């Protein structure tokens, strides 16, 4: 006889998910890899991103998630014939997956940008580069966060 449809493992999982949601992201949408994946599809459609060409420089451990340095650079000659059109940055553990979209032109000379970003929790940062020939590249890096940067 079964009283509940939920297994012990499912119940534990739910509790854990709720706990994480409450501590880190009060009153916001669920942060998840699913949101990040959806965002990626919205950006590049059905294209299959290739590895390589992108370097993400971030600390492996961030003590304060309020301002984590981020540098993204993409290998490209940056000429009118071949250049990086855009770099999208996605965070798969923030309340909103979107971070920024950087748009380059051949006048940029170099496809590299540095900024500082907020990280709610330990998560992966995705950098997606759209090239002028239509190719798409993607790299990910994980940052461990000691104190989250989304406030309460």
């Amino acid at each position, binding site marked *: 006889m079964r009283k509940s449809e939920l297994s012990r493992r499912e119940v534990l999982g739910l509790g854990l998910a709720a706990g994480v949601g409450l501590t880190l*992201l*009060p009153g916001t949408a669920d942060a998840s890899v699913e949101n990040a994946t959806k965002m990626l599809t919205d950006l590049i459609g059905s294209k299959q991103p290739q590895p390589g060409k992108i370097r993400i420089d971030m600390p492996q451990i961030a003590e304060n998630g309020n301002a984590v340095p981020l540098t993204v650079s993409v290998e490209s000659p940056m000429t009118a014939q071949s250049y990086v059109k855009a770099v999208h940055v996605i965070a798969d553990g923030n*309340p909103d997956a979107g971070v920024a979209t*950087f748009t380059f032109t051949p006048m940029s*000379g170099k496809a*590299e*940008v*540095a*900024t500082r970003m907020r990280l709610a929790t330990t998560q992966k940062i995705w950098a997606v580069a759209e090239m002028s020939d239509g190719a798409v590249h993607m790299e990910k890096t994980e940052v461990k966060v000691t104190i989250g*940067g989304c406030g309460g």
Partner: protein
Amino acid sequence: MSIKPRIKLPAEAKKGDVVEIKTMVQHPMESGQRKDSSGKPIPRKIINKFACTFNGKPVFETKMQPAISANPYLAFFAKVEESGTFEFTWTDDDGTVTTEKAQIKVA
């Protein structure tokens, strides 16, 4: 609130050089995800767009989300072939546009 941009770039360069430009503007980048002491949500107010042009031509642009830290900092590059003026604009959620200019002499 006063927004004071800070720009750093070389005053001079050689033709064809790729120069680094560093920019920062004072802004809280209120994410819209925080609550005040009485539990009321604090409305979102961020700089959502930054753009840089050189002699009127687009060089670099950024669309920003609340995940960008307060006092947004951006460092990027520009290839200069002639002397001229960089123009930088920051656009706030409320429509305010802050503009700053910087000259470079190219030999």
